[in-house]
């Protein structure tokens, strides 16, 4: 066997495509006896053993930071789309059309168009435009910009809709017709409030409170915060108010009614709370819980600016400045579902744990775009 053939056979064998055993054995025999081929084989061994160049230690973190921005942009987009549908559905009913006030309808169409143009930022939509984010360099990417432009457009639409409603109310007052402005204004207030949130993904599931009784369709998550604990809407309850005690009050619109002070009810020893909506339904809310290292933690949050907003860090816990949680948090480990769990850098998990933004919808944090803070359940 010639040197060239022997080396080619060895090369193929390295890639797992060795020819027949006899040819391989002949090549090996040649390489044992031929000085040049011995050197070639040793060189291949060196090349195989050479460690790959090491990327910067934080490169994967920067990649994930960019991906999380992508996720936030997607969620903002989804929320804007949901809201634009909600506004568009309400708009044709407004008498503004009858009295010639229609600019907001055109704006909604434009908003839908804008949203559609950004829709390919979601997984499944191939893009070819690269958006590099170098270390120390934070170039705004089109998807993010578009999402924020969508939010800005929504504010304009909302303001226009409020104006239309004002005209409508005046018109109705003049005509003596019953006003529906209360219901719709509540939607606009929530939309305007949540538009300034970092992102508001659509709800994981539709809830009776958001779909019945003439209430507005809720486009955001259905949380309330009572005594710094976040509760998520379960649905209408058949429990009797008479068996419950008043635990305090919260100010919320519940997504469909006026934003006003409402009684929070509960029963001794049960974690859930109950709040009555404008239709007289008693709605059940349960605290968000997650388990880590055998201990149950509950989601804590600052008061929400509006129903439909995501829980955020409670007062007293500093917002991290980096995607890796620093300097506020340090990673501890991951929970059984793989979600990274953080603790306060200056403390232990017995005080509380934190979870980074944008977990999956199945996680207890439910895709919250904010860092979340959890303390041991009582």
């Amino acid at each position, binding site marked *: 066997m010639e040197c060239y053939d022997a*080396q*080619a056979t060895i*090369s*193929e064998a390295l*890639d*797992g*495509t060795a020819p027949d055993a006899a040819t391989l054995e002949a090549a090996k025999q040649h390489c044992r006896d031929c*000085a*040049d081929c*011995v*050197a*070639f084989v*040793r*060189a*291949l061994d*060196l*090349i195989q*053993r*050479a*460690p*790959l*160049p*090491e*990327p*910067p230690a934080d*490169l*994967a973190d*920067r*990649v*994930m930071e*960019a*991906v999380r921005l*992508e996720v936030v942009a997607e969620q903002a987009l989804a929320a804007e789309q949901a809201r634009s549908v909600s506004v568009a559905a309400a708009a044709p009913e407004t008498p503004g059309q009858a009295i010639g006030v229609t600019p907001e309808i055109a704006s909604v169409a434009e908003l839908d168009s804008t949203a559609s143009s950004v829709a*390919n*930022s*979601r*997984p*499944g*939509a*191939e*893009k*070819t435009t*690269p*958006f*590099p*984010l*170098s*270390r120390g360099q934070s170039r705004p990417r089109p998807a993010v910009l578009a999402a924020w432009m969508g939010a800005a457009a929504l504010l304009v639409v909302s303001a226009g809709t409020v104006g239309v409603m004002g005209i409508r109310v005046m018109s109705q007052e003049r005509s003596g017709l019953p006003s529906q402005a209360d219901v719709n204004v509540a939607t606009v207030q929530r939309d305007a409030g949540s538009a300034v949130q970092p992102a508001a993904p659509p709800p994981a599931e539709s809830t009776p409170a958001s779909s019945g009784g003439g209430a507005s369709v809720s486009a955001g998550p259905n949380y309330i915060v009572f005594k710094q604990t976040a509760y998520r809407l379960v649905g209408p309850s058949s429990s009797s108010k008479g068996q419950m005690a008043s635990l305090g009050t919260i100010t919320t619109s519940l997504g469909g009614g006026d934003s006003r002070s409402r009684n929070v009810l509960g029963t001794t020893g049960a974690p859930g709370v109950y709040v009555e909506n404008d239709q007289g339904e008693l709605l059940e809310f349960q605290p968000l819980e997650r388990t880590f290292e055998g201990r149950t933690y509950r989601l804590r949050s600052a008061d929400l600016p509006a129903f439909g907003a995501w829980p955020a860090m409670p007062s007293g816990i500093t917002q991290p400045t980096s995607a890796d949680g620093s300097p506020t948090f340090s990673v501890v*480990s*991951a*929970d059984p*579902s*793989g*979600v*990274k769990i953080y603790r306060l850098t200056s403390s232990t998990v017995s005080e509380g744990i934190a979870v980074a933004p*944008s*977990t*999956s*919808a199945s996680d207890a944090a439910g*895709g919250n775009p904010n860092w979340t803070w959890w303390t041991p359940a009582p």
Partner: protein
Amino acid sequence: MPDRPTDDAALLAAAREGDLAAFEALVREHTRTVFAHALRFFGDQTAAEDTVQEVWIKVYRSLGSFDGRAKFSTWLYRVTRNTCLDSVRAGARRPIPVDPIDAIAAPGDLADEVALTVSVEAAMRALAPEDRDAFSAVALFGLTYAEVAETLQIPVGTVKSRVFRARRSLAHLLDFPKAGV
């Protein structure tokens, strides 16, 4: 330890369901490979880092369109290669020219791992682009000859030739008679 799938297919499936932690596991597992390919292509650290980010963003955006018939590594190789080429075509980046003289390993360079990596990477950059491409697909991304052939739209025999030629060139650049001493 988290009860998380570790093989690419399972992680990919979880990532497609919106599991960002699974996607992060893929990123951490394969970033070094993508980086090595980009560094060999451009010969520039910053360009390689930017390419890595672009690759992963593209992968993330395309999760839903990946049909799962090919291996994840095959897909990742294709995205990485195309990202490098697209970047050059668009005039965004340009590979740093290589002087073959610089690619010849200095005596003693192969003694320790760091120096070995430097020498091997310098030699990699001196390879003909088509040889390096095929060799990278096989040796870095773990593709079979058939997978490379399909990806590059060339015959399997051509893949074999390019990979072998790359190995011989590397051995020469690394001065294999000395390496064998």
